[in-house]
């Protein structure tokens, strides 16, 4: 094989941080090359450089032997480089065909384009209706739009930035089949992920980044997942472990809760029921947009439900607002860190007081005791190893993983009766994720009930005692997690409809 893309000494510095420091590696023609690294290792900056969104301070690139220095994405696309973004670069209000047209240099008329979308999507087993509004599609279908957009331009190099984080296992299979087909046709793929098992099944070469530098190359077909992980983190990892304990009495009971969607693109909840016992971790899995946010809002009290649908230790809390629910011991940590779990421009002390005031005795005759608030914030920082200069720092200034440790720690240290977390380790690096999972397990071992809503199935299998699937706003019956396999979970999540084709029967997103 010969080289398609060669990077030599790429360096890019931002104020205060060197995102890429002399990065060099080579992507072979027809190869599937993995780029591995923790959050903040510099992967995104590197691919943005290749795609022409970031201009490097130093270093050169060669594409197919020719010097390659794209000034903007348009130039990259013209050179045959296409990219599927981590956060979808799609327009909800526009149709599939319009979205595809926006990613092309010289798109044909919409009618021709629709025909070609159908052809290409059928050829690669990615059925798509060009006329549908992208806002109505499931996560898997939305990704197909991005991939088809790339395929229509006959790319020589396809960059995939964390493509599987929102997919069901079945959708991942379809994606991998497409990528293998592409690589057999001679296209190269640069694949970014921190899911090591995926990389081991898909990729034939890997470059590991840490702190902006290349720390090594690996053969993902030879190396084990834990070897790769240790190379990424630069230290040994210990998996979280639950202390043995027996589940106790029922803590939180949901009885036939239904709720209309909050917004146009929301999902209604239908007839949800479950019982959470003391000392138990209930994992709720599902692909994004199947009602996770709505379920969290119903539990936290942001949207009260009909009377008699939610009971905490024998008390009906369905009509209570968040603050009384917190006082009763039901705490929640939503998915969106900045803007929902924490106020971005307020200090950690202020953010700690925001949910901790009542339960940690910071209120005196309606006035806040800032000393206690600061002490509480300092406690969280210490107990959860939050890397920050101190509690006076604005929440916005923390990295995603550190802020996540802070918002989870803030709820855990309030001694909850029941804790509900949504996507507790989303975008968090492996070491921090392990710490957060361990904290949740310890909390359960100490007798609290924990609900983990997540799209990361490995995480759910690791922490849950029981697992339930949330699908199109309906919750399946919880089953013991120990009896589950990935395939079974995939079927529970409704990924099966992808095997039959997505039209007509849209299970994942109604």
């Amino acid at each position, binding site marked *: 094989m010969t080289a398609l893309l060669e990077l030599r000494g790429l360096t890019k510095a931002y104020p205060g941080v060197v995102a890429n420091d002399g990065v060099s590696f080579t992507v072979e023609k027809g190869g599937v090359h993995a780029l591995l690294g923790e959050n903040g290792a510099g992967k995104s*900056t590197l691919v*943005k450089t290749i795609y*022409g*969104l*970031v201009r490097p301070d130093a270093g050169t690139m060669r594409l197919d032997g020719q010097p390659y220095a794209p000034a*903007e*994405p*348009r130039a990259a*696309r013209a050179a045959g480089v296409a990219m599927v*973004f981590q*956060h*979808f*670069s*799609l*327009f*909800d*209000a*526009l149709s599939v065909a*319009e979205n595809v*047209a*926006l*990613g092309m240099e010289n*798109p044909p008329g919409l009618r021709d384009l629709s025909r070609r979308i159908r052809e290409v999507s059928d050829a690669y087993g990615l059925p798509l209706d060009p006329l549908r509004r992208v806002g109505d599609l499931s996560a898997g279908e939305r990704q197909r739009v991005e991939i088809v957009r790339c395929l229509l331009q006959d790319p020589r190099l396809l960059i995939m930035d964390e493509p599987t984080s929102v997919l069901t296992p079945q959708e991942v299979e379809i994606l991998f089949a497409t990528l293998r087909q592409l690589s057999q046709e001679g296209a190269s793929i640069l694949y970014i992920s921190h899911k090591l098992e995926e990389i081991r099944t898909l990729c034939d070469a890997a470059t590991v980044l840490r702190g902006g530098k290349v720390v090594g190359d690996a053969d993902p077909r030879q190396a084990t997942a834990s070897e790769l992980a240790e190379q990424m983190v630069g230290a040994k990892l210990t998996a979280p472990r639950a202390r043995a304990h027996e589940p106790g009495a029922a803590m939180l009971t949901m009885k036939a809760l239904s709720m209309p969607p909050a*917004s*146009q*693109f929301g999902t209604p909840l239908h007839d949800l029921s479950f019982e959470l016992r003391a000392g138990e971790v209930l994992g709720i899995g599902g692909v994004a947009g199947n009602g996770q946010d709505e379920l969290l809002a119903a539990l936290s009290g942001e949207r009260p439900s009909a009377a008699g649908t939610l009971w905490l230790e024998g008390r009906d809390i369905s009509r209570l607002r968040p603050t009384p629910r917190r006082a009763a011991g039901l705490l929640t940590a939503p998915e969106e860190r900045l803007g929902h779990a924490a106020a971005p421009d307020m200090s950690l002390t202020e953010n700690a007081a925001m949910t901790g005031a009542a339960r940690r005795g910071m209120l005196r005759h309606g006035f806040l005791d800032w000393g206690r608030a600061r002490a509480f914030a300092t406690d969280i920082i210490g107990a959860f190893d939050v890397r920050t200069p101190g509690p006076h720092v604005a929440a916005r200034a923390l990295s995603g993983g550190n802020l996540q440790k802070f918002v989870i720690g803030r709820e855990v240290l309030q001694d909850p009766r029941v804790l509900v977390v949504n996507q507790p380790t989303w975008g968090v690096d492996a070491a921090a994720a392990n710490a957060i999972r361990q904290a949740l397990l310890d909390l359960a071992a100490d007798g609290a009930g924990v609900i983990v809503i997540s799209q990361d199935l490995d995480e759910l299998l690791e922490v849950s005692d029981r697992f339930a699937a949330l699908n199109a706003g309906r919750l399946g019956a919880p089953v013991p997690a120990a009896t589950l396999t990935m395939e079974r979970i995939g079927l529970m999540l409704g990924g099966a409809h992808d095997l039959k084709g997505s039209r007509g029967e849209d299970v994942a997103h109604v």
Partner: protein
Amino acid sequence: MDLSSISPTLLIASLMVAATPILLAAIGEMVVEKSGVLNLGVEGMMIMGAVTGFIAAIETGSPWAGFLAAAAGGAVVALLFGFLTQVLLSNQVATGLALTLFGLGVSSLIGQGYVGIKANGLRRIDLGWLTDLPFVGRVIFGHDPMVYLSLLLVALVWGFLKYTRAGLILRAVGESHDAAHALGYHVRRVRLMAIAFGGACAGLGGAYLSLVRVPQWTDGMTAGAGWIALAIVVFASWRAGRVLVGAYLFGGITVLQLNLQTAGAKVSVELLSAAPYLVTILVLVLISFRAGRGGDAPADLARPFHASG
């Protein structure tokens, strides 16, 4: 009350004239908002167009030069807003409000020497026998060119947004500036162009007031037309056809209530004067309710864009 004094022919003909300034301003603002920018300075841009158009028409003697100057004047003021909000990233709402106050003040200053003069208006077109047809002739074939130009503009904007690639890019920028940027589109450039177009349209609308409808210059003569144009854009759910309906509805009720007042209707004058505002908003609210839960607004409307990385 003597309803027979109201002639339907004249009513319809004059409602089109009454609606044209608002229609021009609203269609321009719709394009601006489609690109994701909320410019609340429509009133200020209209009045600047009214005064620059009037002065240019007086000085050159040609109403067409007046309209050209008005479009340029409106666009220049709009680009001031564009520079502040797109380059210096100032708050769009506050800047737009300031632009209205600024326009009202500056127009009053530069218009001082022109109060009370009468301008050469645009002549109505005359298509011979077509214009002489009963009813149809006066209603369809008997207007000044700007009325037709405004209708043409609505059709062009509709076609531009629906069928052209540039229109698609403009909508994409308004939907998600981050995604558009990631795909390599120039968000700021697209928005500045949209802002300039919106300003030019508002300027034309203002000049139509000072050169055709009134036709002379008085301080603050737009009298809230810019705000109505803004409201029409929202209630028309950002669709060109509905903007047309809204503007003509507003014009129609305005003319009708004037006719009713002269016909001696036994309704208080204040209520009649308020009727156009009430009815227009009511009808457009009903339309947008039927169309769905108000999800038509460009998703990134009024959000500042700052390219990172």
